[in-house]
């Protein structure tokens, strides 16, 4: 892992880059240097300007100011196509896939193989995609339509697409946010293989542990400004974090032995769905954080959706506070005090075209109706501002459209929505996806506070350390089955992974 630090001219060099949006100066005189053959991590809090900087490089936005140099030569980017031609490939933070097209069609959009110059050759297309996946060690059906893929698999498609360009500069904007450890390994393997003396990788992530493993240097942004660049080898996580947030963050700790309440607030028995789930049963106690671990496609999301009535169940019993219930849709679940935060932020979480305040109160709107039936907008704004402050959501105002927020701040908006609702049972599916380290800690604290108040939380997460840090108990799923429910004290990464990979004897994913 010795980067070619001696090279005089950097592979990519940016200086004096600025970009403003109405009400926000997203980037202010930022510089960045990517050397040949290196992986440069770019870190910063939510809304620091990381994605904006990358979108400039991808030709999506045009900068207000700044010079770009590629191998010492100044250039400007006219658009996405031009960026591709220059050898810059990007994996976007928010997916940019065409859900109605197949995986292979998505990957090769704009570069379709044709037979005789006229007709599309989908067989060749699928073959190329298959070759690509084989090379990358992925098992995805190239002919599957993207809308049928889980978020994690969509992420893999994005990654494969970017790698298929034979680019010189590969930009990855939080590629692991939706992946779990096994898939992260695959990705790192890919990055190492991609890296040659001619290429370089810009890697954005909020997972600090990854930085040491993959990056050579780390550039820190804060509030749209360049702060510093560190050599990974000679710096500590604590240093990086304090540069990012301007203060220090206390280390992680696991919950101690908690006195579990005997009250069962939610009990699930024999739950099966047509697609995946097989005979899942568990109990959730009052004041408990129950973590759900598992590999991609283990069925955790499907279980959550089945419980809140978003998907039909085939058999099984759900009991809330001792009463058996039939939950036909999420509205009924909400009435029973069960809230579900989806892992698919863009599609199922936020209402992108509405403002922050509207999103925060979306689940609680009826409570903001006055006696005569009018909405109490003052109260809505007050509540929204309260959460904007508590979760430190970076937005110029409560009236900003959510689509103009950074990814992490959008996630905070979704969390705020469910905190506002005051549900007794919260099912959080990948709640910290894309959230910066500082904010993560605050969210952990919030969840713990909720649990102390007697709320019960199911926390689905692909970040095993997070599950271990937060959960009183840990449920491990595999292939739609619930393989184990462990006490925090007895759980280690190894034990959890062991249960998560105990595939059924037949080894079939029906």
């Amino acid at each position, binding site marked *: 892992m010795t980067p070619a630090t001696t090279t005089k001219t950097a592979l990519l060099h940016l200086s004096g880059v600025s970009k403003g949006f109405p*009400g926000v100066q997203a980037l202010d005189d930022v510089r960045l240097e990517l050397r040949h053959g290196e992986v440069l991590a770019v870190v910063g809090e939510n809304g620091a300007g990381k994605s904006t900087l990358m979108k400039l490089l991808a030709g999506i936005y045009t900068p207000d100011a700044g010079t770009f140099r590629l191998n010492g030569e100044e250039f400007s980017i006219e658009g996405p196509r031009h960026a591709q031609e220059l050898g810059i490939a990007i994996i976007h933070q928010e997916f940019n896939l065409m859900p109605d097209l197949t995986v292979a069609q998505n990957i090769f959009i704009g570069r379709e193989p044709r037979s005789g110059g006229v007709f599309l050759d989908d067989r060749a297309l699928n073959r190329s995609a298959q070759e690509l996946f084989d090379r990358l060690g992925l098992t995805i059906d190239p002919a599957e339509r993207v809308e049928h893929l889980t978020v994690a698999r969509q992420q893999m498609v994005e990654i494969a697409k970017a790698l298929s360009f034979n680019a010189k500069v590969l930009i990855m904007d939080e590629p692991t946010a939706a992946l779990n450890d096994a898939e992260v390994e695959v990705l790192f393997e890919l990055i190492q293989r991609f890296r040659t003396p001619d290429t370089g990788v810009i890697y954005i992530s909020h997972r600090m542990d990854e930085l040491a493993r993959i990056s050579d240097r780390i550039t820190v942004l804060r509030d749209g400004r360049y702060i510093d660049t560190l050599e990974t080898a000679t710096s500590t996580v604590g240093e990086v974090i304090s540069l990012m947030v301007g203060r220090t963050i206390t280390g992680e700790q696991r919950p101690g032995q908690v006195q579990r309440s005997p009250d069962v607030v939610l009990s699930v028995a024999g739950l099966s769905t047509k697609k995946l789930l097989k005979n899942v049963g568990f109990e959730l106690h009052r004041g408990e954080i129950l973590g759900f671990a598992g590999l991609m496609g283990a069925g955790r999301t499907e279980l959550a959706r089945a419980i*809140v009535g*978003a998907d039909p169940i085939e058999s099984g019993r759900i009991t809330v506070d001792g009463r058996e219930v039939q939950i036909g*849709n*999420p*509205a*009924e*679940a*909400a*009435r029973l005090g069960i*809230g*579900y935060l*989806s892992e698919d932020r863009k*599609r*199922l*979480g*936020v*209402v*992108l*075209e*509405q403002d922050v305040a*509207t999103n925060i109160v*979306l*689940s609680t*709107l*009826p409570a903001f*109706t006055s006696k005569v*039936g*009018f*909405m109490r*907008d003052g109260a809505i704004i007050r509540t929204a501002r309260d959460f904007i402050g508590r979760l430190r959501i970076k937005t110029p*105002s409560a*009236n*900003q459209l959510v689509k103009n927020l950074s990814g992490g701040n959008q996630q905070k908006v979704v969390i705020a*929505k469910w905190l506002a*609702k005051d549900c007794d049972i919260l099912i959080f599916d990948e709640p910290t996806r894309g959230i910066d380290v500082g904010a993560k800690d605050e969210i952990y604290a919030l969840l713990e506070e909720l649990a102390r108040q007697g709320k019960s939380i199911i926390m689905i997460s692909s970040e095993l350390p997070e599950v271990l840090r937060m959960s009183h108990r840990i449920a491990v799923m595999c292939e739609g089955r619930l393989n184990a429910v462990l006490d925090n004290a007895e759980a280690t990464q190894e034990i959890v992974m062991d249960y998560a990979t105990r595939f059924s004897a037949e080894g079939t994913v029906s």
Partner: protein
Amino acid sequence: MRSRLRGQIQQLLAFASLIAIVVFFSVANDRFLTWANVTGILLAATVTGLLALGTTFVIITGGIDLSIGTGMTLSAVMTGVFLTYLGLPLWLGVILAILFGGLLGLINGVNVAVLKIPPFIATLAMMLVAAGLSLVISGTAPIYFKETPDFVRLATGSLIPGIRFPNGVLIFIIVAIIAGVVLKKTLLGRYTFSIGSNEEATELSGVNVTKWKIAIYTFAGLFTGLAGVLLASRLSSAQPALGMGYELEAIAAVVIGGTSLQGGKGSIVGTVIGALIMAVLTNGLRIMSIPQEWQSVAVGAVILIAVYLDILRRKNA
């Protein structure tokens, strides 16, 4: 704050095209800006305007309602049934006819929200069924309101003493204000926007989307019913063969007013302006005695230009 102010300036500017058109016609023809002609334009805008008001809600949810034209006709026929055939008191007949419009909306809503039939198909089917039933119920002949002469004054009479300001226009203004308040200030309005922006996310937020969609279509149906009543009043008769094509005009008014067929965006003010642009254009060209075949060309061209200018304006704002 600042963004709210900007929003209001934008809405004022949305008048720009309308005002330009009005100024043009005033200069071109001195008959245009007479009291009689202006109230005539307003009255002409009421029927499609009312349809457009209701449809604004449906369109903001990301749906569409093709049944408003013939649904209005059927409501007019039902007004005839209630008042002339059954001899009900005026107020009761009118209320029942409006509720009947709501019933049509309810059926649309159930088809869309419960049976999950695409709104285009569900309301197309309703359009055809309503067209047929209007003819069946009326026996393919107009129903007149001989027994209720007051009924005719509902649209064209003038409540305000002294000035000739048609009641129909007054009703339209009041109803538009109500629609605006409902859209901006009530739960129904909020969910209308939210469903249109992201139906799935709204559903997962614990909102009973099915129920609210039905409510929205039903609410929109009430406007159809009222439009039917006013139409019947203006024509002193329920004309059973009318109505086809009105839906397009109303939807055009909505879209010209800046409401997006993709859903999630729209306003009542915009719809009112859209309806006025259509009515002013039609009237102005007639007043100028432009040959009829050229009128159609001119309306098309002006709509295009007006919307294009509106797009430019928003881009620069």
